[in-house]
């Protein structure tokens, strides 16, 4: 794949392509699509890897690896299973978790992960999705702190209920209940119909 020059002028066509189309272009080795894809998602990917790893060097390595994996697996992306952003961030989360040293977790306040930065870098072509992205922020903020903590540790750090139980010295059943209660509350906020 030829390397597109950083900072090169993005064509209007590329800039207007959907996330799905850009991913397809990335997967097929189109350097312009690859550059636009990286440019569109780099802030979000790096933000997530930095949130999990809290080390800029490690976060960059994880973010780079995330894009390489996205390229490798682009053809397996299934839009029925979620958005490109969610798919890519899932990859970034998994890469970051694997880079945490020996699954050791430094018990810093996990809510820092969700801290809203004063300045959120613009992401071209994804402005319409900002509203979607905020869909769960308020409901999450309204959860009891212990539920929110358990959920963040599970979602962003991939900790199992048992690991959270050991980390916080809380009974396993309590942690499971916290995760379950939080998830069901948030699910109701997404207004998905009940399966019954």
């Amino acid at each position, binding site marked *: 794949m030829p390397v597109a020059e950083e900072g090169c002028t993005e064509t209007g066509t590329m800039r207007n392509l959907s996330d799905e189309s850009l991913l397809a272009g990335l997967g097929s080795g189109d350097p312009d699509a690859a550059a636009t894809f990286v440019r569109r998602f*780099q802030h*979000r990917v790096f933000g997530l890897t930095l949130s999990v790893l809290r080390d800029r060097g490690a976060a*960059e390595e994880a973010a780079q690896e995330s894009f390489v*994996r996205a390229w490798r697996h682009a053809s397996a992306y299934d839009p029925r299973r979620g958005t490109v952003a969610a798919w890519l961030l899932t990859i970034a989360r998994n890469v970051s978790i694997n880079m945490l040293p020996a699954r050791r977790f430094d018990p810093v306040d996990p809510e820092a992960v969700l801290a809203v930065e004063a300045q959120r870098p613009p992401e071209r072509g994804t402005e319409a999705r900002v509203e979607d992205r905020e869909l769960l922020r308020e409901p999450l903020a309204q959860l009891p702190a212990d539920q929110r903590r358990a959920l963040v540790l599970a979602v962003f750090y991939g900790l199992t*209920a048992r690991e959270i139980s050991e980390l916080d010295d809380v009974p396993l059943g309590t942690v499971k209940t916290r995760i379950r209660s939080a998830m069901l509350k948030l699910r109701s906020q*997404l207004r*998905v119909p009940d399966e019954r």
Partner: protein
Amino acid sequence: MNADMGCAQVRELAPELALGIAEGGERAAALRHLSGCAGCRRLVSELSSVGDELLLLAPAAEPPPGFESRVLGRLADAARPRGIQRPRWRRWAAVAAAAVLAAALGGGSVFLATAGDRRLADGYQAVLRQGEGSFFAAAPLQGPRGRAGTVFGYQGQPSWAMVTLRPTIPAERRFRVQVLTRDGRYLAAGEAVLGGDKTAWGGQLPVDLSAVHELRLLGADGRTAFAATFDAASPWD
């Protein structure tokens, strides 16, 4: 102890399943239940959407200067024709593509003998376009005595699989072909007669190839005689 989970137990565990943090035995038992329960599968799917939405809440951050060019450099290295770093499934895919191209082009052996990887990739994409497919994959077919053949898969409309068997079975045997999906469902994919002179079987898959975790050949006793695991068809796991 988790052999027979019911809906109530699986629903208790559903959030952990959706977040990918359910552990060992519980997870396996729940997946077995999900294979036959559409309601529980739907609940897990909806909760997975919650997990996806939560990841989107992470704050964005400005990457270090030069990040973009370093990423593109890595992509270029990874995509270099003779690159060692190409992922295994892509190499397998190239083998599968070569087989399809050889058949499709008639004089394919000459084409392949002289083509570079770039040309092969172009041909690969052209074949995929013809079939409205998105990728090929292949996985080793493992039997009781190790490698017994290869399973090639095609992601398209429809998706299909081709099983090729080394001459390890002296006489014809009948197998039920079964697919284990990534969300834990066991689906029938037809019947195959293999052994003796019959060393290949092909058939349509009941789901997209990207949803297939394992393809199994079940013997008359219902046990898995041969199995092939597609280990990199989806990055969601």
